[in-house]
Every structure is written in C-alpha cells, then in structure tokens.
C-alpha cells in the first residue's frame, strides 16, 4: 500500500513540498534564535540584528531580515500546487541565496560597527552561532527539496500528458513513455 503510494507522482510531490516547507519553516523559526554568539555562551538573535534598537533609534538590517523571511515565503510557495514548475525553481534559488546569506550573519551583524570596532569584535571572539548554522543548512536543504519538487512536477506533467493522450490504447504506455523520456520509469526511480 505504502509502496503504491510512493509510486504516485502526486504523493511524491506532496512529500517533497511538505519536507521543503518544514525545512524552510524551521529556518525561519531560527530567526528568533541566536545568529551570532561566542564560546562564552551569550548571543544575539537574527531578529534583534534585523531590528536593532541603537542609541539614535530603531535600525533595520534588511539582509538579516530577508535572509530569514525568504524561507517563510518559500515555505508557502512550495506547498501550493503551481502548474508552472518555474515557481519551484525560483523558490529553490531564493532558498539557496537565503542559506548562503545566513552563513554570513556574523559579517552582517558587524556591519553596524566601524571597520576598527568590527575587527575588535572579531578578535574578541564573536562568531556565527549554532542556530544560524542550522538555519543556513536547513535553508539549503529546503532549496534542494524545492528543486526536486520542481523536477518531480515536470516528470509528472510529462507522464500525465502521455497518459491522457494515449489512455485509449492502454495504461501501460505511461511507463513506456516515462522510461523512454527520462530516468523515471517507475516509482522507485523517480527521485
């Protein structure tokens, strides 16, 4: 039963979508966990880096904000059933970018200081915090899954189209076309 379910492209798509969305949501959730810290133990969340209350008022750090907001938006995008596969490719690209930016959160944090002070803080031991590393990795994972989601959608579309056009001649053709057209011949090889 389960095996059959996996063989259905729609289930695979759903699985990929949910997994990608979960990774992306966790990455976004870590917006409220430490993004920079040190071995001593304290740290500062990405949220506070994005919305920094400095002496002369509230400062908005767009890089910190969007690096974490993108996974949230992409999580919504990948769970919606778009016919256009490019949506998933775009989401994958954005998640990839977000993941890379998250890995630079230490430098993003230090941009509020002069070069001299930023260098002092580097020497003092400010580093990328573990939650930010996890967020970056999860964002990249979500990117990979979104990419697969797009690819799975493409294969499904091809298979569905073939099934529709050749249905009167027999359902077995589906597998033939799919096998001929790509490495997707059955459920086990779809991903």
């Amino acid at each position, binding site marked *: 039963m389960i095996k059959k379910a996996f063989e259905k492209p729609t289930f695979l798509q759903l699985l990929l979508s949910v997994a990608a969305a979960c990774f992306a949501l966790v990455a976004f959730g870590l917006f409220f966990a430490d993004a*920079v*810290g*040190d*071995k*001593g*133990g*304290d*740290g*500062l969340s990405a949220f506070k880096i994005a919305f*920094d*209350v*400095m*002496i*002369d008022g509230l400062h908005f750090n767009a890089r910190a904000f969007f690096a974490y907001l993108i996974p949230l938006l992409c999580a919504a995008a990948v769970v919606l059933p778009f016919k256009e596969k490019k949506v998933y490719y775009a989401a994958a690209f954005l998640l990839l970018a977000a993941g890379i930016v998250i890995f630079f959160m230490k430098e993003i944090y230090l941009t*509020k200081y002069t070069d001299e*002070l930023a260098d*002092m*803080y580097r*020497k*003092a*031991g*400010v580093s990328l915090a573990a939650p930010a590393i996890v967020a970056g990795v999860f964002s990249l994972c979500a990117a990979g899954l979104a990419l697969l989601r797009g690819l799975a959608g493409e294969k499904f579309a091809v298979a569905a189209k073939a099934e529709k056009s050749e249905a009167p001649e027999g359902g077995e053709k589906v597998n033939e076309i799919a096998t001929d057209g790509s490495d997707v011949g059955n459920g086990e090889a779809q991903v």
Partner: protein
Amino acid sequence: MKKRYFRVVCAAVALCFVLAAFAACKTNPANPEGLENYLVIDESKEYQSVTGFGASAAWWAQTVPQGSQSATDLAKSLYTDDGIGLSIYRYNIGGGSWDYEAYNDHGAGDFVVFPEYRNTQSAFIAENYDKSLSAKENFAIADNYDFSKDANALEFMKLCAVQEGSTVERIILFANSPHYLLTKSGKTNGDYKYQSNLPEENYEAYCEYLIKYLEYVVVGMGLDVEAVSAINEPQHAWGGEDSPQEGCHYEPEELAAFYDVFHGYLSDFNARYGTTVKMDVFESGNYDVYKSKGRVMEYIYAMSKYDWFDEIDTISVHSYGSPTSVEARESFVYMLNNLYGDKISVEMSEICYMEAVLDEGMTSALWLSEVMNKDFVNLGAKAWSWWMATSCDDYNDGIVTWMWGSEDGEVKPTKRYYVMGNYSRFLDSGDKRIEGYVDNADDGVFATVFKKGNGDIVVVLTNTGNKKAVINLPDGYTIEEAYETSAEMDLKKVATVNSDNAYTASAGSVTTLILSK
C-alpha cells in the same frame, strides 16, 4: 507462555539498562555516588582573591546628622563586625544639583518619597565663579571650595573609617556627573538623551574639581583613598526630561580622552603626596556585549589605545542589564580574555533590586544572593558592592532602611542586608574563591565556595526553592558553624546537624557554612 515470559524478562532488562543509564548520568568523578545535592569542593582549583564588599554613600550620607545616634547606628551596622563588616566605602562627589534643586519634583517616579534627596551637595561655591577666568582656573582656586557644605557625608565617612572595630579597608571617591558649571547643559544631566555633557575644554577643570576633593579627604581628613572613579555608567542616556538623578553620558573615545587627562592629574597628585591613588575605570553600566546600548567592550577598547592602560588591572562594572544571566557574564569574560589575556580582572561595583514593588523580605534577598553567586563564579568578580547602603523605606535601592535626615531614626535592616552579610561578614580580603558547587542540585540550590587564609572553607549556600534541601557534604569536611538568613532567621547561628555528613538548608534561605577539614 514461554514467549510471554521472554518478553517480560526482556522488558525488565531493558528497564534496568535505562535506569542504570539514568543513574550513570548522575555520577561523575566529583560525585562518584551520584548523590543528590552533593556539595563538590575542589581546593586545588583556586580562582580570584576577594578584595572586598561595599555600598555607596550617595545621596543619603549627606543627610546623616553629625554626632547623631543615627550616625553611630548606621556606621556600626554597615562597617563593623557587629554588623555585616563591609570593607569598601564609596563616597559620592556630588555634581552640585542641590544648588538648583534639580530633582525635587520630577523624574524619580511616584514610588520615591523624597526625590529631592537625589540632589547632591557640592563643595564648590558657585557664587564665587568668576566669568573672567577660565573654568579650569575657577576650579583650581582652593578658596572656591567649602567642604562644610558636604560635612555630613564627609564626617560620616570618617566615622565609618575610624570607629572602633571599623572594617573599612578601601575608600573610593566616585562621581556620577561633573559639576553643573562644567557641563554643556549647565545641569548634572544632559538636555537630551545621550548628550555628551562634558565638553573637552572642561576636562582639566573637572580634573581640578576631583583632585580638590581627593586632596581634602587625603590631606585634610587624613583618610587613605584607594581610587577615584570619575565616570559612572557612561553608556547610559543621562539626559532629557525624565532624568531622575545625576549622570553624564560619554562616548568611548571621549571617556578615554578624559581619562588620559585625569591620569596626568592623578600622577601629579601621587607624586606630590606620596600616595598610590588609582583611577577606577569605568563603572560600566552593564557587561552586555551584544546589546547595542551595552557597548562595554567599546569603552575598554578605546582606553586600550592609551599608554596608561598598561597600569589598569581592574575594570569596574555594574550588574544591571542582565543581572541573572550566566551567558552575559561569560561572554564578557571570554571577550575580555581574548583581547587582553588575564591582565584585566573585574570588580562589581553597583547593583540594586530595580522592581517597583517594595520588598524588604527574602524575595529580593534571594535574588541578591543569586547575583552575588553569578558575579563571583561566572564574572570572576573580586569585589562586590551594593548601590546605596540605606533607603528611605520607599524603594529597593538600600540594604537597610532609615528615615533620611533623622537624628535617631531606627536603622532597620532588610533581608538583603543579612544576605549580603552571609558573604561579607565571613570573607576577608585575600580569601580565595575555589572550585565548588552543588552537584545534582534541586532547582534553586547553589553554592559559592571560598577558602580562607587559615584553611577554613566558607560555603555560602542558597536555596531559593520552597522546600528544604538536604545538602550532602564531601568526606573529610566538618561543619564548624552555620549562619542562616531566611524568613525566620536574620543571619543567625543555627545548629549544625551533621550525623550523616549532611546539612539541611531551609526553604528560601541563604546559609553560610564554615567548614574545617
């Protein structure tokens, strides 16, 4: 049937493994039996030496009538071993806000009964200010000072220092703001928040002001002064309509530049009088390295660019901001060590319980003990000082309450006083903090452990929980004495039931255990 028995046996074996694994988690080399609430003491690991306990005389000491019963009672309760034996006296060099009644009716909040007492007397005679002279020249003229204006505070300091059985070892003169005639705003706080209120052209005049006070106390009164603290919590706003007290904001480079000038003045003073008075730097308002308004590392870094920084071996910080955070303390120490190695140590020079609800009981006292524990253990503080020694029974900023200005008002200790005594009365300068903690501790149970010069171990044991905790002592140690502060006890000697080499700490208590080997 056999299959069923087999499953039961398997389940039992699995359960045993789980339980054994759980028990194993509770054992470690320091606590091989995995005992609950096991007091670990490792004398081979020594940390910082204690350099004292104190409180400040800001605001209230200027209202202590000279020769009064109040003066005698306050001095005895704070600075003798009949009281809690504090050793650091922090005298406040006022900015002169009394002259223009700056804080009489605003800013301090409804909970402060006498906001006018936040005004400070200054020895500088403002009427003598000659506009034809520079500020430096005005503040350098000895005749422009009348120290009788602050006689109450000065005489009370002397009483504490010279009374029979005095425990005063260190006198620190500290200022919250330069004199108002030297500031940009003409007041002892800024016109607006974060206004750097001391103009560079008045650095020397402010130094003259501080040196005149120092000279009076050292030469005129014959008291030994250890340090002068010219700047207080420089990262704070100290300006605007709601400023409730004296204060002056400095940017890091301004602070360092001022200290550079002051260092020269202090060197000259020391050369002139053969003294070794130091600069106390810099009473940071907190030790938060990640909060934008913390900036503690930036101030230290600014100072490190000057040659005189080589002479600085101690940074004074306040525990406001993150008073119960282990992480904030450890990050600060970590960064300090990364940048300056072990050259710089830390003293905690001010904290108070800043809750608007008045508390003179164990709630704030247990909080105080937690802050002290973390400051000693995680911050590595050598000295520890409370903010004001007395309050007017209107706020949580004192350790005793006393009606300011009264001739014979009752000196009424809060539980904070007794808990601070759990540390200060049993520890002397030079005693070392050693490795010690409560392993497998109940929630809210912790210990701070010190070793005295005679080899005795002083354990300050805190149980913030609402049930008693049986503390298992390590082999080889015997409780000689125990002093408990709790809802029922005021730093009172209690029986030391030690038959099972254990001590039962009351719920919501702080106890000092004197152990011998």
